């Protein structure tokens, strides 16, 4: 299942979020060699992990984290608006119904990672439909573009790719409709909702 952690839920999920920042450091810094800030030597936390950020965590039946993603409202500062506006040929899409996807992080390998990624994507689309989000934006490294498209959603470029840190990166927009959800669920063999918004007592 995909656990939604919205801003007010943060205090109840401190452990899970700490674990997520640790896994993000392991994937993005240790494995992929990204030059992003590391806090206290173990957490990958940047200027966009603010109060505005919403996180989706993919958890297995035992509650073990399999992956995570960060969602940001485009009405607040985003990676695209602050760092990569030049990737958008016709301006950065901004609006109540536009959110940005960053830090898609999956922990397994090969087909299993693809399955986790698909469920995360379904979770994002469910989040979008529940909250009136019509479009997601994201910045993709070109070598990873194929696996992003392989999810099977309606994805289009916002501008031509440009060099960044020895690689090409490009901005994408994903159009979300109820059909997107049906299609993604079919393709992933998922029957019902994956997104869960479990609100815990701050005991």
């Amino acid at each position, binding site marked *: 299942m995909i656990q939604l952690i919205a801003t007010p839920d943060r205090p109840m999920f401190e452990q899970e979020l700490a674990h997520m920042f640790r896994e993000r450091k*392991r994937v993005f810094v240790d494995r*992929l060699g990204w030059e992003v800030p590391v806090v206290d030597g173990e957490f990958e936390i940047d200027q966009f992990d603010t109060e505005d950020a919403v996180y989706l965590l993919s958890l297995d039946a035992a509650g073990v984290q399999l992956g995570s993603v960060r969602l940001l409202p485009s009405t607040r500062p985003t990676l695209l608006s602050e760092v990569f506006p030049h990737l958008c040929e016709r301006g950065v899409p901004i609006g109540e119904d536009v959110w940005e996807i960053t830090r898609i992080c999956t922990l397994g390998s*090969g087909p299993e990672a693809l399955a986790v990624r698909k469920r995360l994507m379904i979770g994002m689309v469910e989040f979008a439909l529940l909250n009136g989000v019509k479009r997601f934006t994201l910045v993709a490294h070109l*070598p990873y*573009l194929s696996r992003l498209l392989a999810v099977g959603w309606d994805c289009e*470029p916002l501008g031509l*790719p440009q060099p960044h840190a020895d690689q090409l990166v490009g901005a994408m927009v994903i159009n979300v409709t109820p059909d997107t959800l049906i299609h993604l669920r079919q393709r992933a063999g998922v029957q019902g909702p994956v997104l869960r918004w479990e609100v815990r007592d701050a005991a």
Partner: protein
Amino acid sequence: MPLFDDVEQFVKGANRATDINELSGLLNGAVETFGFDHVALVHHVNLHAPDAATQALQYITYPDALRAEMKARRQLGDDPVLIAVQRSASAFLWSDLPQIIDMNPRRTEILNAAMACGISDGFTVPVNVPGEFLGSCSFALRAGREVKRAMLPAAQYVGCFAFEAVRRIRQLGDTIRVKEAKPALTTRQYDCLVLAAQGRSDWHIAQLLGISRETVHQHIETAKRRYQVASRTQLVVRALFDSQITFADVLGPQLSPD
């Protein structure tokens, strides 16, 4: 901004295309628009393995002479372009091949044979979907024409979106899985293997993952048993071969040819 307009138009068309004819029409148009003459959209499977070949994607508009040459050669394992796709996650020009792979006499001969069929250069976009066969989209230029470098970023998009459109139309995502029989690795085994493949020592891996050196050793030994191989090198090769780990995992962002 007409270049991006053309890209956008192709992507919208490809995303909506409902059959292969429609898509190949769009693709052939894009090939011309972005300054190329031929295209090859292929999955890299051994064509002698019948069960793999039935689902594999092969859309090639190379000149007849080159197609005949490729067919006569049969052994795609020697093809320098396909070898470079395994080596590089980033797109590359064929004229830059010597910077990506060792162009031994055999590979040089194959590239020269392509040139002799009326090709001056090409541009290949690797397509790597974990758990599926490696693929690529190559654009080739006929003799006497020069690559327009300004078109290459656009061509990369065309390659990726065209490949995905074919995957979608043929519903390959559901059927073209690499053999299920492959050994599954646990997340920790996978982590250790990727780091080992990057050439890190057990000690270094232990530091990075926050586990003991003995545990790292155990993870790798268990993975070797699952693959029934004796050495770490064999383990890395096998895991790369069936996409349990990928070149992007191992080589990370330092993939650009140096």
